[in-house]
């Protein structure tokens, strides 16, 4: 019999990095091909499965940044110590760095939306010869919600980082305002070939893509990534379907030209 696609494998938790009281990155033992933007079904028997995107990839491990917002994730936060989690995957198409490299690139990410693009940001940050200018606009609700603080420190030396919070006192280290506020003033050398990636909550993606197009970005140069309920990751359970697309099979990364026509 073929390998059962629903049976998860046990993966050891190698390290846990808390970012905020409810958002931790779990470094999980994993050997195999995986791309940023792909996701795993993470489970704790008794509590169920949840789709979590890969926020980092390294030799023998993957990072999963998990927010404690539901039944499964609550349980993971309570009982992770010294333990393992069940995983199956990776699923989804993920980001293909080749789509963006060689151009000016703008990445707009909101909240946990930074997780799926973290791998892309780090790769481009470490390979400056692969792009002609890199801007990261990352927005969080408040100072307490900022994820990947260590990464941001490094990224600030590698690229133009606009770190912003929706609400907060003015500060030297970050801006105050929605991510969309910083799009009109983007200084671009060649707007017609510049590429953009937008990941975040649905409303943020809608307004950010509109602002990018207003700024002069070509629709075909924009990519977005969707988040939906997914029970299988295999194109069967139906929960993530939007029109004729399954977020788990055809996405979660979609070219904007496809994504803009998807109506929930």
């Amino acid at each position, binding site marked *: 019999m073929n390998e059962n696609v*629903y049976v998860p494998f046990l993966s050891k938790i190698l390290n846990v990095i808390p970012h905020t009281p409810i958002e931790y990155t779990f470094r999980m033992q994993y050997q195999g091909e995986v791309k940023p933007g792909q996701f795993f079904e993470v489970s704790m028997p*008794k509590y169920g499965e949840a789709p979590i995107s890969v926020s980092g990839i390294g030799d023998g491990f993957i990072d999963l940044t998990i927010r404690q917002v539901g039944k499964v*994730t609550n349980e993971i936060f309570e009982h992770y110590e010294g333990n393992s989690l069940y995983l199956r995957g990776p699923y989804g198409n993920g980001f293909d760095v080749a789509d963006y490299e060689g151009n000016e690139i703008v990445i707009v990410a909101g909240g946990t939306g930074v997780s799926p693009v973290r791998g892309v940001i780090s790769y481009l940050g470490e390979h400056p010869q692969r792009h002609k200018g890199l801007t990261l606009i990352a927005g969080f609700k408040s100072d307490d919600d900022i994820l990947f603080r260590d990464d941001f420190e490094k990224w600030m030396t590698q690229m133009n980082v606009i770190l912003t919070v929706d609400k907060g006192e003015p500060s030297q280290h970050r801006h105050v305002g929605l991510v969309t506020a910083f799009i009109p003033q983007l200084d671009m050398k060649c707007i017609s070939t510049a590429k953009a990636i937008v990941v975040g909550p649905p409303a943020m993606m809608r307004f950010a893509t509109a602002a990018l197009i207003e700024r002069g970005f070509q629709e075909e140069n924009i990519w977005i990534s969707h988040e939906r309920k997914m029970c299988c990751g295999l194109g069967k*359970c139906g929960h993530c379907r939007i029109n004729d697309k399954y977020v788990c099979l055809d996405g979660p990364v979609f070219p904007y030209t496809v994504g803009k026509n998807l109506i929930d």
Partner: protein
Amino acid sequence: MGYCFTKDAMEAIWSEWEKCYDIYTPKCYHGKGRFSDTDCIRYGQVHSIDEVVFDKKAEYSPKEFLLQNAETLFYFTENHIQESEKRQKEALIFLRSCDLHAIKRLDAIYLQQGAADNYYKRLREKAKFVLMGCQKAFDTCFCTDMGTNQSQDYDMSIDYVDGLYFMDCKMAQWDELLNGAAKSIQTVIPTYVTETITHITLPKHIPQSMLQSDFWRQYDGRCIACGRCNFVCPTCSCFTMQDMYYTDNGKAGERRRVWASCMVDGYADVAGGGTYRKKNGERMRYKVLHKIWDFQKRTGYPMCVGCGRCDDICPEYISFSHCINELEKACKEAEVNE
């Protein structure tokens, strides 16, 4: 090869079949209907040809065999996962042409789209299909308009006419038994309907503007989001994962998948409190367009097979076929305006 059998002969064949198969057919559950003193016709295991209901439509579809409403995928104890046992005996499933076409749709999702589903596959391999001929369409059927009124993909066929059973058998292993029992050997073509009372016209094109059209608002109030249309549909196949554990031993439990309905609250909930399609009209649009448009874009043929069960079951008397016809008109109008 085609045969004609008397009832006695059919009974003898039945007992031979039962040695090899569990036999599932539409059967009558007396007093179990949705209204008092009414019966429910639905699928169940039967042990005699007498139990098979030929003259009424099964309210629920034969998908129940391949996709059970709650199916255990595996059991878990502390650090061990044990896959659920697979069915040993083959199954003979009696179904009509529309439902046989529906199996093709289920195959497309469960075997061809993405990785093959182990649980579906292992049941599918055990299933043999007996096509039940349709002499007359029921009130809400519109199979002729969906091109599902006739099917060749059966293992055997059966027609019940004036006390005699007519069968076509494509399974060589039964030739000897059937030859010996037959009243006569003749060419048998399973009956199929060419006329239906209900008709639909599929929209040729669905303009993007129809996705957010006010057309769907009429269902906001009428639909009560009960999901019955999904549960009776032979092609609806969504599920939700569910972990449960045994209360006497909190360390052991099982992971199941259970039927899910895109019409029911919670279907599109995401962690953190977000959801999509809060309005029932939006859910109606999501379902209807999947059946006649979105699935087709992936496979080349519509998902709906025209069995009419959703119309029969709706407690609010919402008609899917009426919706399609109105949608077709609205699409034409929208296209003119675009």
